[in-house]
């Protein structure tokens, strides 16, 4: 592969903290890699763990879930549920051999534009390292 592999990361961001934090990164003109695309949900608690599996199936090389820091959830508890769910999902994915680093979760608050940049850069870097995800990508199997 002469061209450097450009990974494709799908991210789910809560509206109140992480999405706002990502917006702040924008208003602050902080630069970060372009390989991550965001799906906005109201709360990290909204992210169905099956979304992660689905994202990998559909072609994501990496997935990120990001929400408010514990205790800061706009809905008080949503991120606590998210944390529990995705901690397990993380374990499960690793257990079946999905490279660590493909699945990520972060807390980014509305004021952490700079942290958002670091998170994106880190997640994209990890996905780059892991390479294209093809373990169970749909990709026209047996068509």
């Amino acid at each position: 592969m002469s061209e450097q592999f450009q990974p494709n990361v799908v991210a789910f961001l809560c509206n109140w903290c992480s999405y706002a934090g990502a917006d702040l990164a924008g208003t602050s003109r902080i630069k970060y890699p372009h390989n991550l695309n965001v799906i906005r949900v109201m709360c990290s608690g909204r992210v169905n763990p099956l979304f992660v599996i689905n994202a990998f199936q559909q072609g994501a090389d990496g997935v990120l879930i990001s929400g408010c820091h514990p205790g800061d959830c706009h809905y008080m508890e949503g991120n606590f549920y998210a944390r529990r769910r995705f901690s397990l999902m993380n374990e499960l994915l690793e257990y079946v051999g999905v490279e660590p680093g493909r699945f990520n979760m972060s807390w980014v608050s509305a004021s952490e534009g700079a942290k958002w940049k670091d998170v994106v850069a880190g997640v994209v870097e990890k996905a780059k390292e892991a390479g294209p995800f093809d373990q169970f990508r749909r990709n026209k199997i047996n068509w």
Partner: protein
Amino acid sequence: MVDLEKMRTIAKETVSRDDVRYLIGWRQGTYGFRVSPHFMKGPEEAEKLIFSPLCSNNLATYLTLTEKLPVPRGEQPDSRKIAVMVKGCDSRAVVQQLIEKGIERERVFVIGCPCEGVLDLKKVEEKFPGILSPVEVEWSGDKIIFTLPDGVKEVPKGEVLAKKCLSCRYPNPVMSDITLWDEVKSLGDGNYEDVKEMEEKNPQEKWSFWKDKFSSCIRCYSCRNVCPMCYCEDCVLDRLNPQWINRSANISENSAFQLARAFHLAGRCIECGECERVCPVDIPLMALNRKLAKEVREQYEFEPGLDPESKPFQSSYRPNDKEDFIL
């Protein structure tokens, strides 16, 4: 000690009660080492009841499997109890069903059967292949006694017991309305050596193991159907809109299905091992379930199916749940 006479007497009494609809127990199967669930409607059917190391079926499944047919106008739905015989693991399924409101406490009558471990039929049939006529099997200390057509054979438990039983911590029903005989000692400490072994491997090794397993899945969904916890009216695995998982069987859909199923049982699976037992293509589903059970137990100090008053794992949290994986 297993006391079949007592079991049958109590079964007779139970089915004779006005408030009991039927009783689910075990009976000798139609051939070899098979055992079948026994739906007992009247006392005359008690003689068929057995309890032996062959009784692996988790009968709690039937509490939620029974379809609710339309009730003709003017009639009342049958609200009588269903009596069910449970081993230790099965009783946890009942408790978990109570926690998840799949059943109501006053609709079940739980008959507890302390259990010294059930057999892995695959191991047994390998040892004694081609046996057609029904076989009697008994516990005897750390041995299992097989009364085969060509004589009685003793086999050390370790060689034929199901894997889940070798490390079972709850051989005695954790909940019952009546317990049939004395409690037994637990066989194991529920360690997760097998899980840890897998965890040690590198991602490539892990995936090559699972890829092999997942790709042979025929998506019959027996594992789901037999699971006492899987009783959704409309399972997401079947749903067409939205379609989470395509119907076609290939490594992509199969993996997605396997992960989704395992995840749905996180903090709920009571490790009865039924899913793995029924899988016609021998996918080691328990390895997935046990991985999650391990995390749930070790990191969250939570075990499903023990306390009917407890909150379900997936619908609760602790403010200090672990978060070392979070960036």
